[in-house]
């Protein structure tokens, strides 16, 4: 690739500049400020774009503001001629590439045309100035060697950086013994998951043994259940046997018993029938006996009275009225006698008679003549007595009158006026005079004085005093005295004034009045006393007269009494007190006695007749009471009549009984026949045997019933006959065994079923468990994530490794080739003073002299250093000529070279010219001279 023409529309100081260059060496000469660097930069700008505005590099925009940009005309072995034009546009400029065939293209194609080189890479090899070489001075050995390599291999530094970064990133992803990097973490997680899965698997691994166990348990349970069933059946059989065996035994026993009993038949209902017959028989027999007895009884004849007696009785009964009349007479006589006796008794009592007097009275003379003799005697005596009584009464009256008068006398003595009253009375005329005087004076002065008050006081005092004396109460007397004194004082104080006079009059007027009255009273009293004395005297005289009269009467009376006594001296009783009455009573008494004698006679007569009657009846009927005589007679009669009737009846009855007896006998015979009939069947002769036969029959019946019962119970258990060989104890033992076995089985079954349930649960759980698959899936996810990370890691590793390999490839293949060429040239340049540039083990460059001495780069002289550097660059350019056949652009790099070395340099460059175009910018004019042959010299700023 070679530049044919440079056209600058506007670039720095250059405007519309056109520079034609040739394929080989071109020297672009210009003094300072001519714009050499501007042209050099313009070439780079056009190829790789204008620098960004913020970049350090200059953009060389025309200060005039004119057209900016330019174009390069290029010949290219590979792509033919093409032209690149870059003008102002976007910041890197708008670029257009024109091909020879007229095809136009832009940036994309340009990259290809520039072989992917960017400006930095281009500059690192193909474009350098003295300045860039001079920079080496300041670099240390590492930098130099790196820069040497880097500048020769385009941005190797970047690769290193990337490699380092990759290494770091890898470490961040994964460390062999690390823990924190994500891959290590993932690994850890995976491991944990694996562990968890193992555990889960182990857990699930129990599934099979568990299912086997479950199957075993299932089978065991089934077997046990079967056995249980069998045992149940057996137990059932035993149970049945337990119930059946006693029944069978009973059956057997009953059968045997039945066989032992005689097989006689017993008439149906025999006993009842027999008993009925027997009772009927006994009934009939007793009936018969009764009849016979009755017959015997009836056969006795009834005793009866003979007809004459009966007729006598009937007669007596007909005379009953007569009998009653007799009885009535006796009764009334007795009553009469009793009444007379009563009367006699009354009279006797009334007369107060003793038995002796009674006797005498019967003969006493009670004539009316005698009665008249006695009457006047009695009259006289009575009159005297009456007079005496009247006198006595009069005497008593006179004495009581005298008593009264004495009492009045004593009373008057008490009413006698007191001494004080007498004194007052004595003073009365004085007082009266004073009062009149006062009145007179008052009347003169038309005034009156009142002396009443003192008078009143005094009177009051007197009165009270009188009362006190009368009552003998000295306190009151004292009070009266005080009053009187007060009255006197008042009196004395009677004022002389008219006023006083009035008072005086008022006071004493009343007093005087009082006094007057008192005087009258005293006089009255004296008069009464005199009257009383006179009365007493008169009464005393009357009393004496009466006493004399009484004496006389009493004497008269005594004389009358003696006369009467003489008259009644011979009488059994004193009949003088009430003579007429006494005589009447005595006469009555004598009458009663006479009547009594008459009635007693009649009574005795009646009684005699009755006795005769009773004796006659008693002869016939035996001893008999008189009162019940007729009752018994009547009874006797009725009895007689009844006996006759009865006798008739008895005869009738006997006839009846005979016929009844016949009947009963017939019945008895029938019953007996029937009984015999009954006895005939069980072949017995008497009742005991019959009953024994019945008992046997009953037993047989009972046994038969039992047998039936047992048979029916047995029939319940089975249709076919059951036979058991066991004995009961054996059976019992077997039952116990079965029960125990059943319990054991049940226990085991329960435990097994529990286990079954648990296992079922566990198995189901395991079967449904997602855990394992979840873990698996999670494991896969983590694995994928790890792989993802591993990929990242590997990618980084690949990048790193590829960079390393490329670098080492360079080191091992390209670099040795470059170095060989560089060595040749370096050796040539230095006139074989230095033979090679080699790399130390550490990767640093060193120069080795022909004698084998090696120097580090910084130990070389400035020019030699530049020469070493140039040798390397040119060797690189030469090496890359196929891939990057770019022109080499140099900005005065040879200034430090001596002539010899410069000419050698020129030789080397000439050697390179066929493959590379050279643009050499210089300010040294003589430099043109150094180049010979086909060298184009262009002066800058000369157009």
């Amino acid at each position: 690739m070679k530049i044919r023409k440079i056209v600058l529309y506007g670039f720095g100081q250059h405007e519309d500049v056109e520079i034609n260059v040739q394929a080989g060496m071109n020297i672009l000469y210009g003094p300072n400020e001519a714009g050499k660097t501007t042209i050099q930069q313009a070439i780079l700008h056009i190829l790789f774009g204008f620098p960004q505005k913020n970049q350090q590099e200059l953009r060389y925009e025309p200060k005039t503001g004119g057209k900016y940009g330019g174009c390069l005309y290029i010949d290219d072995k590979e792509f033919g001629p093409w032209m690149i034009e870059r003008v102002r546009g976007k910041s890197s400029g708008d670029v257009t590439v024109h091909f020879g065939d007229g095809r136009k293209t832009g940036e994309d194609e340009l990259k290809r045309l520039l072989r992917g080189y960017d400006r930095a890479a281009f500059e690192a090899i193909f474009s350098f100035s003295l300045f860039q070489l001079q920079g080496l001075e300041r670099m240390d050995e590492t930098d130099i060697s790196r820069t040497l390599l880097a500048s020769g291999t385009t941005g190797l530094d970047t690769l290193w950086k990337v490699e380092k970064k990759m290494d770091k990133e890898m470490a961040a992803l994964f460390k062999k013994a690390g823990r924190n990097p994500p891959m290590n973490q993932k690994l850890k997680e995976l491991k944990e998951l694996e562990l968890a899965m193992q555990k889960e698997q182990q857990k699930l691994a129990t599934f099979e043994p568990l299912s086997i166990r479950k199957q075993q348990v299932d089978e065991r349970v089934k077997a046990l259940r079967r056995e249980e069933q069998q045992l149940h059946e057996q137990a059932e059989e035993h149970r049945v046997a337990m119930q059946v065996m006693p029944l069978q035994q009973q059956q057997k026993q009953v059968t045997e018993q039945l066989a032992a009993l005689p097989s006689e038949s017993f008439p149906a209902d025999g006993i009842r029938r027999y008993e009925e017959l027997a009772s009927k028989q006994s009934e009939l027999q007793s009936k018969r006996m009764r009849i016979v007895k009755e017959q015997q009884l009836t056969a006795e004849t009834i005793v009866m009275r003979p007809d004459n007696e009966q007729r006598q009785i009937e007669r007596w009964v007909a005379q009953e009225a007569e009998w009653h009349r007799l009885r009535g007479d006796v009764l009334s006589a007795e009553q009469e006698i009793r009444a007379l006796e009563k009367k006699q008794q009354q009279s006797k009592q009334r007369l107060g008679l003793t038995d002796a007097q009674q006797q005498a009275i019967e003969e006493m003379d009670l004539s009316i003549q005698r009665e008249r003799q006695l009457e006047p005697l009695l009259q006289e005596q009575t009159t005297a007595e009456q007079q005496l009584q009247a006198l006595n009464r009069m005497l008593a009256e006179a004495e009581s009158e005298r008593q009264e008068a004495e009492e009045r006398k004593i009373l008057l003595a008490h009413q006698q006026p007191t001494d004080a009253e007498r004194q007052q009375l004595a003073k009365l005329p004085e007082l009266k005079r004073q009062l009149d005087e006062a009145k007179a004076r008052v009347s003169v002065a038309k005034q009156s004085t009142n002396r009443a008050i003192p008078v009143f006081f005094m009177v009051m005092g007197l009165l009270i005093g009188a009362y006190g004396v009368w009552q003998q109460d000295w306190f009151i007397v004292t009070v009266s005295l005080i009053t009187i004194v007060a009255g006197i004082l008042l009196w004395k104080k009677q004022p002389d004034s008219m006023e006083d006079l009035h008072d005086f009059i008022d006071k004493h007027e009343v007093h005087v009045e009082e006094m007057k009255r008192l005087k009258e009273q005293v006089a009255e009293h004296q008069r009464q006393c005199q009257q009383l004395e006179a009365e007493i005297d008169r009464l005393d005289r009357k009393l004496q007269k009466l006493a004399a009269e009484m004496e006389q009467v009493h004497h008269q009376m005594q004389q009358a009494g003696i006369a009467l006594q003489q008259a009644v001296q011979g009488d059994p009783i004193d009949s003088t007190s009430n003579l007429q009455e006494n005589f009447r009573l005595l006469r009555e008494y004598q009458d009663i006695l006479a009547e009594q004698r008459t009635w007693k006679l009649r009574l005795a007569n009646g009684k005699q007749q009755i006795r005769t009657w009773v004796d006659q009846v008693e002869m016939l009927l035996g001893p008999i009471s008189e009162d019940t005589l007729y009752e018994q007679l009547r009874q006797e009669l009725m009895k007689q009549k009844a006996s006759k009737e009865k006798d008739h009846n008895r005869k009738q009855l006997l006839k009846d009984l005979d016929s009844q007896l016949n009947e009963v006998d017939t019945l008895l015979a029938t019953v007996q026949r029937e009984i015999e009939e009954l006895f005939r069947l069980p072949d017995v002769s008497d009742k005991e045997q019959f009953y024994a036969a019945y008992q046997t029959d009953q037993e047989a019946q009972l046994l038969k019933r039992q047998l039936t019962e047992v048979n029916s119970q047995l029939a319940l258990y089975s249709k076919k006959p059951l036979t058991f060989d066991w004995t009961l104890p054996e059976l019992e033992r077997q039952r116990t065994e079965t029960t125990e076995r059943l319990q054991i089985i049940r226990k085991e079954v329960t435990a097994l079923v529990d286990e079954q349930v648990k296992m079922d649960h566990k198995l189901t759980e395991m079967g449904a468990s997602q855990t394992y698959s979840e873990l698996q899936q999670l494991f896969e996810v983590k694995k994928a994530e790890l792989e993802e990370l591993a990929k990242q890691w590997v990618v980084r590793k690949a990048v790193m490794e590829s960079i390393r390999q490329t670098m080492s490839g360079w080191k091992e293949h390209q670099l040795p080739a470059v170095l060989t060429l560089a060595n040749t040239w370096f050796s040539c340049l230095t006139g074989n003073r230095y033979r090679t540039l080699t790399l130390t083990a550490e990767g640093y460059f060193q120069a080795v002299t022909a004698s084998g001495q090696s120097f580090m780069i910084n130990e070389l002289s400035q020019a030699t250093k530049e020469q070493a550097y140039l040798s390397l660059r040119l060797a690189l350019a030469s090496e890359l000529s196929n891939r990057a056949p770019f022109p080499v652009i140099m900005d005065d790099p040879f200034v430090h070279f001596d002539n010899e070395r410069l000419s050698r340099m020129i030789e080397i460059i000439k050697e390179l010219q066929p493959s590379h175009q050279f643009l050499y910018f210089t300010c040294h004019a003589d430099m043109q001279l150094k180049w010979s042959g086909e060298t184009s010299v262009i002066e800058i700023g000369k157009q």
Partner: protein
Amino acid sequence: METIRFLHTADLHLDSPFKGMAAAGPDELARLQQSTFAAFDRFIAYAVEQRPDFIVIVGDIYDGEDRSLRAQIRFQQAMQRLENAQIPVFLSYGNHDHLAGNWTRVSLPENVHVFGDEVEQKQWTIRGETITIYGFSYPQRHVKEPMIEDYATAGPDGLYIGLLHGSVAGDSAHAVYAPFTVSELQQKNYHYWALGHIHKRQLLAQEPPIVYPGNIQGRHRNEQGVKGFYDVSLSREQANTTFIPTSAIVFTALTVSCRGIEYADDWVAACQEAIDGVVAELGSIIIELVMTDTEELADNLQRSASESEWLDILREQYVLNEPFVWIATIDWPSSSTSEFSNTLLEPVVDTLTSWKLEDWDELMSELYGHRAGRYIERLTLSDREQLEQQATALLAAELLKEG
């Protein structure tokens, strides 16, 4: 001639974990975990509803030593459902669930007929047609020798079906298991070859049908597309196979053009639109996005966030989305080299690209040698390419930053 009908499935890999689901959260994981069961349930539901004459399952019901108990119980329950529906099942175990494993086994109901460790025949009659099935179960993890010789040639009468879990001889992409060639199979004169082992659905031949039904649910990015099983109607004259999809979640990839998009929100919208289109078609998905035409977007993206952040932003749009959407990766085109010096990058990239798989393994040796190596899969060619690309991109980016 009777036509019989059966379902052909293989490689259920029940309850096996999804691989490569880095950064998935618990919600996503739960969803994924359900998916193999969900797919299997669809299969069973289809069988119960459609009542085929029988079902063949050609190996790899479980995922190997890691088989979960839950998976077995679910399988057992499903078999029970088929038993209840009176559908016989013929199954052989494959390399993943070979007979030598000492894992717990659950007992299967009586409708399930398991082939033993040597090729054996099972014969019975359906509607007067004699059906003969040949097959075998893997006695151990590896069966590298061909088993095809042990299969008897079909007789003149009846229908013959071969069950074979293995791979075509010479297929370097998969490890060799019971290798066979198509012509070997054809020589047996069977009416249908029910194959298993390869998870990608494919028809090796038409006469007779030699069929890999593929697995019923994709489980990583290499098992893309709709998965399912075959509903086969077979008579001596002809065979009809109908594919029945089962996959609950579909692994898929999508290219999104970013032409004309400058800003992030527009980019998110464009991605969503594209994804929603796929969701509408496939339902739940795990998707790998590939970005193209990113020139205009590039500056913006590069400056504002890292690629993983963009992935997070986009994932956030689909958190708890129904149907389920998980964005596995976003592939960005490698940055153009225009920005930086080729001279610097080129030699390094040249070095990088010159590496062979062994060289990469060598790089990995530090990891492989470490205990981490246990968890890291060996690199594949495609991995190498990817890594190469990533490394180049990283290098370029770093150089750009440093330069």
